[in-house]
């Protein structure tokens, strides 16, 4: 979106509140919803990518060394990656302000 939803007046809406910019949900910072964040002990990581397959948000990326980490801009902290990781790399820890 060219501007945030908070900035639109009722006179500036598109027909039927249609979004004319495809893909703008990527700008939506769903990471704000998170109360727990994934932390990693890569000593145990076998780089299988199971966490990436299961992530419902599709926010897990592989780095240059082959390790997988969640992008915290979108990660909602659901903990599915930690639950599914076969070698126990991921631990969910409470977010601190």
């Amino acid at each position, binding site marked *: 979106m060219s501007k*945030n*939803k*908070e900035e*639109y007046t*009722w006179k500036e809406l598109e*027909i039927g*509140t249609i979004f004319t910019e*495809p893909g703008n949900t990527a700008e939506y910072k769903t990471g704000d919803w998170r109360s727990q964040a994934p932390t990693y002990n890569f000593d145990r990581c076998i780089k299988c990518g199971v966490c990436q397959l299961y992530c419902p948000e599709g926010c897990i990326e592989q780095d240059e060394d082959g390790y997988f980490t969640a992008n915290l801009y979108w990660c909602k902290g659901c903990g599915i990656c930690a639950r599914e990781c076969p070698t126990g790399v991921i631990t969910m820890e409470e977010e601190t302000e």
Partner: protein
Amino acid sequence: MGEKVGIEASIAIAEAAGLANPDVIAAYPITPQTHIVEHLAEMVANGEVDAEYIPVESEHSAMSACLGASAVGARTFTATAGQGLELMHEVLYIVSSMQLPVVMAVANRALSAPINVWGDHSDLMAVRDTGWIQIVVENGQEAVDNVLCAFCIAEDHRVLLPVMIHLDGFHMTHVIEPIIIPDREEVQKFVPPNNYPLPLDPGRPVTMGGVGPPTIYPEVKKYQDVHLRSTKGVILEHWDRFARAFGRQYNPVECYRTEDAKVLIMMMGSMGETAMNAVDNLRNEGISAGLLKLRLWRPFPFEELQEAVGGADLLVVVDRAISFGGPAGPFCSEVKSALYNLEKRPKVTGFVAGLGGRDIPVVGFETMVCQGMEIAEKGGGEILETYGVRE
């Protein structure tokens, strides 16, 4: 000019919708459905109408299919009635909020229980706030004419809203009347092609029906209200255009012998035909009576109503629906609200009559006018007056 034929109103509506070249018709074909979609199915099967006919498994799906079809820019038509309209309810709001120009004929029928598929306005009142443009007609010719107008209104780029044409179940849908069906050429000249400005198109992707959190929802709803109100001028424009092309004029509030009337009786739908005779009889008896028929239910024609009540002392409003535990019949409540802030306004007495398809004879309207005059003069009267209910 088209030819005048003796035809059932439902079949005539199907013919009219077919002449408008719809691209998609989605309907649930079982009771409480009418012959409207049945006849359209025949016309599509016979190759007379080049449309995609989708017989779905419920009314909820019928309106959902119409939504999808309209979103890709197809001219979309459906019809329903009574309980069927109730089952569509959720999707009606979505279609209007997404500004999709679906046209639907609604055969107004009573709601269960007890099971009753006869005509009344219970279903009509239940969809009052759905955000659709709503036109109420009183005979088969008006239904045919307004189905054609509905496509022009709905698809007009200044409008882009769905339109319901309300017609009384049985009193109209199952009655054979003399009706002029316009010629194909006339209709094609009158109804321009649909050209939805932002359809679903892979070449120009858009998102429809997105999430509207508290940060934007109130703005969307305010826009919707202001927009629906603003369409009245465009509706009048298309009615005037229709009058020039076909010679029949429609108005938001239709007046009959109201010029010098002291007492007015008001209603929506097919009751208006009978009430005209009642007004004639009352006039012959020396009572200065007139008749108002509301044609445009949404957006509500405040100015036209206020003007139409003019110098009358009393307005008797007849509802064919009931608002259980409410202030009056639902139509009467609206009329009262519309007049309340006027400096000089008539007294208003409401009657609920004709529920579940019970006939209201000519003398019924005469009786309501006389009773209304008595209540206005002497005071008293029930919160909810009924006519024709056995005590």
